[in-house]
């Protein structure tokens, strides 16, 4: 250890600023209330973060490709309502692929507008946020969806089941993170996404089909949303049609917190997972500390900004910079 030079420590810090922030929060919360660091609590936080987390995995792809996806919240409501409704109409075995198909169609539509028509992704997905919400309300006629026979269906395994003592939502989240992480970092397709997001024009001139890459990112995002909707539906076997409302901003916060750049071209799945966990543990930690909720609103965002600052400061090696 003594052989580590100051510079080497600096390099490690620069790469793992967000991990260090994460570790600090965990320690502070545990000191505040030892119950924070119990297996039950850890599982329950990761399990409830899994839905947000899975959506964040897909949005990471979109953000790295240099675009935004603000439609994921209302798209998740859509998937949840559709799969619950079809569960009673067609049975779970058909309902799940049908719901995935419909959600992927939405993703393909957005991918077409942003990728092939080259429309601004902020406007397109902001519009789709409202449009899909309207679609969900029309589909459900404003009614809550509930599965009629809650006891007699195997559909609950995705949200309530567990394997090897680990809850299913966590397994799905981590499994998907592993697969998508490999796709992003180890395949030519992954490198194309970074190239398109980093410098789209240069990527085009290097022979990368930009439209197709962006289109694929939105398909991946829609697939993640459908998976999140499946878990959501399976977890409570019933839902309001506004279940995903507002989640798009939390998802984006987690992705950015993980260090992905809104300008595209940077970010990793691993760091997004850390971003998701930080958000989840902050909310849970403050609840367990028993702070008033209005204090929680403030503290949550103070912590997030602190984390982003730590991350940036570690990257540039000092706490502030006079030349921005």
């Amino acid at each position, binding site marked *: 250890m003594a052989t580590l030079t100051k510079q080497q420590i600096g390099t490690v810090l620069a790469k793992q600023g967000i991990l260090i922030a994460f570790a600090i929060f965990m320690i502070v919360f545990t000191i505040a*209330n030892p*119950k*924070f660091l*119990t297996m*039950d*609590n850890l599982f*329950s936080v990761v399990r*409830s973060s899994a*839905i947000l987390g899975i959506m964040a995995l897909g949005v990471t792809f979109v953000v790295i490709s240099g675009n935004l996806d603000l439609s994921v919240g209302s798209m998740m409501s859509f998937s949840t309502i559709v799969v619950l409704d079809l569960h009673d109409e067609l049975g779970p075995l058909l309902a799940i692929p049908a719901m995935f198909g419909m959600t992927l169609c939405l993703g393909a539509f957005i991918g077409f507008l942003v990728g092939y028509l080259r429309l601004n992704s902020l406007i397109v997905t902001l519009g789709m946020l409202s449009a899909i919400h309207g679609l969900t*309300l*029309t589909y459900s*006629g*404003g*009614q*809550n969806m*509930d599965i009629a026979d809650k006891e007699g269906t195997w559909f609950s395994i995705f949200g*309530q089941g567990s394997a090897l003592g680990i809850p299913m939502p966590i397994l799905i989240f981590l499994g998907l993170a592993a697969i998508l992480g490999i796709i992003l970092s180890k395949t030519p397709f992954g490198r194309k996404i970074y190239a398109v997001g980093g410098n789209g024009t240069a990527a085009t001139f290097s022979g990368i089909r930009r439209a197709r890459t962006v289109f694929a990112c939105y398909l991946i995002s829609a697939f993640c949303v459908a998976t999140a909707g499946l878990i*959501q539906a399976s*977890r*409570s076997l*019933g*839902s*309001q*049609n*506004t*279940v995903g409302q507002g989640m798009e901003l939390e998802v984006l916060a987690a992705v950015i917190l993980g260090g992905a750049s809104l300008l595209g071209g940077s970010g990793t799945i691993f760091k997004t997972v850390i971003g998701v966990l930080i958000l989840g543990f902050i*909310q*849970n930690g403050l*609840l*367990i500390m*028993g702070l008033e*909720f*209005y204090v929680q609103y403030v503290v949550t965002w103070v912590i997030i900004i602190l984390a982003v600052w730590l991350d940036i400061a570690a990257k540039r090696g000092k706490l502030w910079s006079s030349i921005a």
Partner: protein
Amino acid sequence: MKTTLTAALVASTTLTGTAMAGSHSDTMTIGITQNNVGVDSYQTTYEKAFIAAAEANDMVETVVLDAGGDVARQIAQMEDLIQQEVDAIIIWPTNGEAVIPAVRKAHQADIPVIVTNSNIAEQGFDFVSSFSGPDNITQGKRSAEIMCDKFKDMGIEDEAKVVHITGQPGYTTAIERAKGFDDRLPEVCPNVEQIDKQPGDWNREKSQQVMEAFLVKYDDIDGVYAGDDNMGVGALNAAKAAGRDGIIFVGATNFAVGYEAMQDGDYWGSIYQSPVDDAEAALKTAIDVLNGEEVPFLNYFDTPKITQENQDEYDKPVF
């Protein structure tokens, strides 16, 4: 959307009807601008019940409009209704403050305004004939009584500990129910301790997360009060998943999921608030005002207690 279209058609025929009939007082035309039909089951059912109640009454013609949650659209609809010279206007405010100027305009045009379901802000009260809706403070109080009575049955009224999950911060309904519960519980069960209170934002998933944190934090929880059944069932799911039995769950606004959980014996009680009663009360209040009858300013419709013991007396809610 379909209902809005038909409503618009009804509206235009109603208008010609009124115009031909002149200003006779045999039939009265009542306009309603609703908050956001289609956004939830309660509002959807309310609209259906309102139209049905109006159709059943030969004396009443209605113009049924929906603001789609949009304040600007609701203000425009108020102005339309004033232009159409309806006899009375019922408004389900999209925003308790922003609609006041429009309400004032109707008042100045001598059109009585009835506020339904959730009241407008106090500075607008002078322009309103009556408010028809649920009494949320009483609902909170009744939930406290339901919980206390159950603790007494179980003989734990001197040691029980309660956690409280409120609706969305800032919403009048959430604030009033929480106040009613907080005030009443120490009156009826002075030794029951409320150990924590956090918002569940009217959201089942959020409430489930809050309850999960409570279960980790407190080894001993005897009762949960949630500001509506949707959140109550979320909390119940969390307790079931954690294998914590014997907790008494009390909610408000009995939802179908809450009603079913009561049938299953998992959920103890709630407050029965029917959108049908809500809609019928609003229409009746408007008719009474037009007939010159004495109507209290706060004209509450009754929202009774419902528990596992008496739920057979009530139909399962449609939402």
